[in-house]
């Protein structure tokens, strides 16, 4: 396995639970977990490498909005991976013990672990779980929009824009936190 140029950390203290596998080929390659402490917080575990002892995963913290934009093909998996300055990696043994937690600056991420710039969501490459999860996220977002318009509550932190000024369709919605507007 590639030797990572980063800082070793202690044990993984994330308080998360497994939701499902988004990409699967004879084993999970991209899995999603939810943050127990933050209802809008998610983590992606992206498979990167393996040898006889370990499978190496990149751990990517992603928000509800980032996931929405990923599933709506507005941003790529590569963009999700490189949005923060640092990325966490963990080596998982065959007996599912997490070892060698390491934090790596994005400049030092091996090219071999990097998705291509065209790494957008597409139903063919992803699991059926991914598609149902996408629909669930979208449904949550629509409910939030409805609540926002009904109550005018800016704390819902959601707005929508019409994509390309075309007729409003679920798949063309784009979401941003109000604080970013």
């Amino acid at each position, binding site marked *: 396995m590639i030797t990572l140029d980063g800082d070793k950390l202690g044990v993984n203290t994330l308080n998360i639970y497994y939701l499902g596998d988004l*990409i699967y*080929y*004879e*084993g999970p*390659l*991209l899995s999603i977990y939810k943050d127990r402490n933050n209802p809008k917080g998610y983590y992606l575990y*992206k*498979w*990167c*490498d*393996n040898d006889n002892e370990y*499978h190496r995963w990149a751990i990517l913290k992603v928000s509800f909005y980032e996931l929405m934009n990923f599933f709506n093909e507005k941003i790529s*998996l590569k963009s999700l991976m490189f949005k923060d300055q640092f990325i966490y990696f963990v080596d*998982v043994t*065959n*007996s*599912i013990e997490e070892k060698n937690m390491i934090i790596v600056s994005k400049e030092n991420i091996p*090219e*071999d*672990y*990097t*998705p*291509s710039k*065209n*790494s957008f969501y*597409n139903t*063919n*490459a992803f699991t059926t779980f991914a598609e149902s999860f996408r629909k669930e996220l979208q449904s949550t977002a629509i409910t939030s929009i409805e609540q926002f318009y009904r109550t005018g509550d800016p704390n819902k932190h959601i707005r929508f824009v019409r994509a390309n000024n075309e007729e409003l369709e679920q798949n063309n919605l784009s979401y941003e936190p109000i604080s970013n507007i």
Partner: protein
Amino acid sequence: MEFKYQEDYKLLMEKGEICPPATYKPKNISPAYRWVLDPIETPSNWLSQYHKDPIRFAPKNGLIQCEAMALSFFSTENGCKLRFNELKKLIGVKVSNMGTHIAEGQIFEKDGVNSEEDENSHFNHHSAIEANYIQNFLRAKLI
């Protein structure tokens, strides 16, 4: 038909999971393609993911464990290549740890049972004890 992993299927059955799924059928499929490492005879090429790392799948449910006991094949070379390139695009070049070559051969009725093909010509295959893939997959070329 007696399966290669019959004992594991029995354990899954005790947990309420029918494995291989009842919809899987034995059939002759020629040609059939699969990603492999060079050389084609490498034992891990023909071992299910579950049996490479059983503990890795221990916390998963019966459905996922059953799927992990199957081998992935394609009925078209193009489908096999496309899937590889798609995963390379999404995950990175390290997907080549799973295969660097495409093996071409054939699957016989006696070799096991198969799922329906998906739109990319991919299907899952649960191996019978009689299956001898090294004998039936003789050619491999770089992906």
